[in-house]
């Protein structure tokens, strides 16, 4: 049980708990990307280099990006920046009808 592993695992648990606690979606996505980076470091300490590359490229990279794209798509980010919401789509401006 080296100190380094302990710190990494403790960080994982702190990330997990803090995502459930924070109200702000943007913060939770950033914390999730941090979590994913720490995971790829842990894969290295567990002697699994394949997983480190994949987790770094796929975990923080693509998944984090998809979360940001979703948040942008649902205006969460725009609302946070304090910019007035440029005309939120009116109630029934959606594509699929019944």
């Amino acid at each position, binding site marked *: 049980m080296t100190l380094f592993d302990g710190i990494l695992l403790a960080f994982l648990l702190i990330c*997990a708990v803090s995502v459930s606690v924070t109200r702000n979606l943007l913060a939770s996505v950033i914390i*999730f990307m941090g979590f994913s980076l720490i995971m790829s470091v842990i894969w290295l300490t567990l002697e699994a280099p394949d997983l480190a590359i994949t987790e770094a490229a796929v975990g923080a990279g693509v998944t984090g990006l998809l979360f940001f794209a979703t948040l942008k798509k649902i205006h969460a980010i725009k609302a946070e920046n304090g910019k007035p919401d440029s005309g939120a789509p009116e109630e029934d401006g959606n594509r699929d009808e019944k």
Partner: protein
Amino acid sequence: MVQLREFLTNLFANYYEAAAMILFGIGFTSLLMHRNLVKKIIGFNFMDSAIYLFLAAKGYITGRLAPIITDGNTDPRLYVNPIPTGLVLTGIVVSVSVTAFSLALTCRLYDKYHTLDIDEITYLARKERD
């Protein structure tokens, strides 16, 4: 009292698996309890990462190297167990696919109901049907 001490020493010995199980519990909680869809999906990712951490920790053998045979010495006692690494590689891609699918669903739901709260969405859908 002795049992508790023994339980803790065992837990301390398997610290990777213990941390993975606590992470699994937290992920399972947020997937079950959170009403916000994005939080649910992040919870699902935590749960899956916890299972893969547990699996990879099962394959690790102290004092051995990653299974890349560079110097032609194929004595298995020098290398870590490659099976969990292969399984986790498959698992990570499964998690990405499921996350992309559920995020797409979240976008469409927000498009239609303008909320991320799954209970509110179910209520709106039920009201819409009557």
